[in-house]
């Protein structure tokens, strides 16, 4: 597909958690907890307030459609600030320093006086009803010629446990938000830029690692389409696919609009009717449970409501997303019926009751009461009206589903959702502070250096630079451990042990270093490293593991072992000659339990094989 011809324009926002000691606005640690560990809970309601400009944000208004009660879990690692029961502490200076470092790495300009703002978020993920955020730096450069527009320092939101239950451990962890200009024009370019920014962030050594610690939001539009923001793409590999699928969605919506117009489709006279009676005897479990079933007819929509926009997503899914804001479970439409227990006869009665002609589509909603049904169908009419308007792609914030399709979340927020966080004083970033910011070496440069100086394969070096064990590797090198030995352990041995199910987090940096020193001093063979680490992970001390798994073996002892093994297999050795070396090597290593260097074993073995063969 020629994305440039389609007018694809994309920008990204990257949210990365920072690995600071304390949270952004309180002195709690930045550690995540298991939900079962929660020490208490409380619940609240949220309501939107007027901003300083005297208006309620449209995204906030959308959330208010539902009367929602939010439950929060507290921990012994959270405090009254997370509970929104205490004013915030001053902005965490360590987090600000990381932002300044990253800003300088992108060649940005710091804001002289940083002001913390309150960004309205009333989906419950912030106990206060707003997220604190501050603009820290502007205008940086990307390798593709694009621009980093802004860097903001924000507080992380609470983690949704289920429905309207939230866990407060994550709330307040510092988060850097990096926003690019809409400077990308192909799906692959978007992915590349995201990867580059991720690499720069990790180069600071001050960002959190692991699933959920980095999230990408992608802004996408095509010519005649509209800007759509897709939230929370966690897997980097999916970004290109997400972009491709959104392009397809926008193209299809444009095509549907054209067809609707040819058909003279209209929502002007769509009025809701009570059709509960039609489904009195229904086999559909959803409809059977419904207190009230209502329907509307969409003139000229038949076949188009069911048209696929993205894998697994139809125009009907979009309408359903809108209707769900009123608290209903979703909608049915006649493009997909009969199905789900609804019979052809029921559909026929419904269509005739709703005066639906062949080109019309009937939408059904099952709800708790008349008010909810009216709200949901009104939402469907609004969304259907958009589909045939001049802007058939609504400006929206969407959430990513598995595999890269998306669902509607809320309208794009406007600027009205911000107002000053008056409880936090502004922070001045003077010239002295900015000048003193040290720019760390980029990981890709670091990897190149490792490859060149240490003779580590470049792919290995890149993996190492990206690994969270990088600081340990650098320390090992400083302590004169052979870089290849450390790299082999951290990349190859550790990965294999982890695959075996060994709990590698139990092995401290100090233990790794002790093992390496033992190898360097000849007290253990390189081959013993996996066994030693397994023992240490299982609770043994380094010394005990060394004593048990790598007892010192003298050359004389080794020769005895080798002779014994050769003697037991003399026929085999005589037959194979030098070729017996390989098969016997493993046997010897097993016997000496890896406590002798492989090179020495092979040397002794070769000599003894020669002797045995010569002696025949």
């Amino acid at each position, binding site marked *: 597909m020629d994305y440039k011809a389609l007018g694809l324009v994309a920008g990204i926002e990257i949210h990365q958690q920072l690995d600071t000691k304390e949270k952004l606005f309180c002195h709690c640690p930045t550690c995540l907890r298991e939900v079962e560990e929660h020490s208490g809970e409380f619940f609240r309601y949220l*309501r939107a307030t007027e901003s300083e400009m005297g208006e309620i944000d449209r995204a906030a208004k959308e959330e208010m459609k539902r009367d929602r009660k939010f439950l929060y879990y507290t921990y012994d690692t959270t405090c009254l600030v997370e509970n*929104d029961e*205490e004013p915030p502490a001053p902005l965490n200076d360590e987090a600000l320093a990381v932002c300044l470092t990253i800003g300088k790495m992108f060649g940005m300009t710091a804001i002289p*006086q940083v002001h913390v703002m309150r960004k309205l978020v009333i989906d419950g993920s912030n106990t*206060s009803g*707003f997220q604190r955020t501050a603009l820290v730096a502007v205008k940086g450069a990307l390798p593709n010629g694009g621009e980093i527009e802004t860097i903001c320092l924000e507080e992380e939101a609470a983690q949704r446990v289920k429905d309207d239950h939230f866990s407060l451990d994550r709330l307040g962890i510092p988060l850097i938000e990096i926003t690019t200009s809409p400077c990308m024009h192909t799906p692959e370019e978007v992915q590349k830029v995201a990867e580059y920014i991720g690499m720069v962030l990790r180069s600071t050594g001050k960002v959190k690692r692991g699933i959920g610690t980095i999230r990408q939001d992608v802004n996408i539009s095509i010519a005649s389409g509209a800007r759509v923001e897709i939230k929370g793409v966690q897997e980097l590999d999916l970004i290109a696919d997400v972009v491709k699928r959104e392009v397809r969605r926008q193209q299809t919506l444009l095509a549907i609009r054209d067809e609707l117009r040819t058909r003279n489709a209209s929502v002007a006279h769509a009025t809701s009717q009570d059709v509960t009676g039609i489904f009195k005897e229904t086999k559909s479990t959803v409809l059977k449970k419904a207190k009230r079933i209502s329907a509307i007819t969409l003139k000229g929509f038949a076949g188009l409501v069911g048209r696929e926009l993205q894998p697994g997503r139809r125009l009907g899914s979009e309408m359903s997303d809108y209707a769900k804001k009123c608290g209903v479970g979703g909608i049915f439409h006649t493009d997909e019926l009969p199905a789900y227990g609804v019979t052809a006869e029921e559909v026929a009665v419904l269509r005739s009751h709703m005066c639906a002609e062949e080109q019309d589509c009937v939408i059904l909603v099952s709800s708790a009461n008349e008010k909810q049904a009216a709200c949901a169908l009104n939402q469907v009419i609004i969304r259907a009206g958009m589909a045939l308007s001049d802007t058939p792609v609504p400006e929206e914030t969407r959430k990513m589903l598995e595999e890269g399709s998306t669902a509607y979340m809320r309208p794009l927020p406007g600027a009205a959702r*911000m107002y*000053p966080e008056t409880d936090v004083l502004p922070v*001045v970033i003077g010239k002295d502070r900015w000048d003193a910011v040290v720019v760390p070496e980029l990981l890709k440069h670091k990897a190149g250096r490792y490859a060149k100086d240490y003779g580590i394969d470049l792919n290995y070096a890149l993996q190492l630079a990206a690994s969270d064990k990088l600081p340990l590797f650098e320390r090992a090198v400083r302590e004169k451990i052979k870089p290849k030995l450390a790299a082999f352990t951290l990349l190859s041995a550790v990965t294999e042990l982890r695959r075996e199910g060994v709990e590698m987090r139990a092995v401290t940096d100090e233990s790794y270093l002790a093992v390496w020193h033992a190898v360097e001093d000849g007290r253990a063979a390189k081959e013993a490293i996996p066994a030693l680490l397994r023992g240490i992970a299982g609770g043994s001390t380094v010394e005990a593991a060394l004593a048990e798994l790598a007892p010192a073996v003298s050359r004389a002892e080794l020769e005895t072992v080798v002779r014994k093994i050769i003697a037991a297999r003399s026929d085999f050795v005589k037959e194979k000659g030098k070729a017996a070396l390989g098969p016997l090597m493993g046997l010897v290593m097993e016997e000496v339990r890896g406590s002798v260097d492989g090179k020495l074993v092979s040397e002794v073995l070769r000599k003894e094989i020669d002797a045995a063969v010569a002696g025949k």
Partner: protein
Amino acid sequence: MNSGDLVSCEYGGKTHKGIFITSRDGMAVVKLSSGYNIGVPPVSCTCIESPVPTPPRTREVNKTAGLPDLSIISTGGTIASRIDYRTGSVSSQFDASDILTAIPELAQIANYRTLPLAAILSENMTPVIWQELARAIYAEIKNGAKGIIVTHGTDTMAYSAAAISFMIDTPIPIIFVGSQRSADRPSSDNAMNAVCAAAAATSDLGEVAVVMHATTNDDTCAIHRGTRVRKMHTSRRDAFQSMGLPAIGSVAFPSQAVTLAPGAVRRGTDALAIHDTLEPHCALLQFYPGMSPDILRAYECYKGLVLSGTGLGHVSTLLIPAIRELVAAGTLVVMTSQCMHGRVCDRVYDTGRDLLNAGVIEGGDMLPEVALVKLMWVLGNEKDPAKAAAMMATDLKGELNRRSAHGL
């Protein structure tokens, strides 16, 4: 540049358009179109245009037939706050009608007359404003109000509630309400507290009370007697606690169901009366180890002094001569305890007996600050020292329990 001007700022190699908010510490604070505020050197900004001032919105409140009439008297505080662009801090600016606009549910409970009495932070409250408040409440009740809501900053709300308790005999509920978390935040407790206050003000209650969150959850508000309530936390929603007495009632949220304790004074029990004289020359002094007698002597021209003593109601023996001098010069000295819970008894230890001999009056289980407010009222209304002293030892408005209940 003036607040609200559209400006263009050259910064970081880019032009940023925004709205000038204020000057702060030598920087121009500009709200960008993205919504963010930044502080940049003023020289980098130029004014593009000044806004046409928009006329203030008129707020109409429609009356609903059949609902009781309540009066909302606003004094300021966090139940009604807005952002101050000059300092960037939260200050009290809304009047009572703004509260109705912000909390539409109130309109389903009652019809309201709104009366902006003051717009102050409650630490700036004075006995003179208490008196103005008492007169305003009296007028509203005379005028037919079926309940009064006083919106108040939380810091000194308990003092004001106590003052009104003593100054007014009321047949209807007079409810003090505020919020602990600023009203500009979606999570503010202002709306729920106000709704519960309105429910309490239309209930069968007939006394002065404080209605605030009972727990950190948005589920219940407690109704506290105005003379037995104290702010016990700096920031939590459930900061207000009844002391030495259980709360006299509760309001469930969102059902608005009001439950009153058997001991709560019922509507119509007392006839309306006002006694709004206060003696301003009264003070409250907290004793601490090593306190100099000179501090006591500084109060020599005061008509009344409440001591917040240690334990059962003690101060250092070294202070007793100074106390004797004060009493001899005509100052009424009342002893309370900084323990907050429990009753003073100056008959157990020698120091206590010496204090009684010096002329100190035992304040029973009165809260120190309530004793202060009561002393102002008693000395304002009773000139005879012996009678005044007797009144201090008598329960007037539920401030002094005759019995100390177990478990409180």
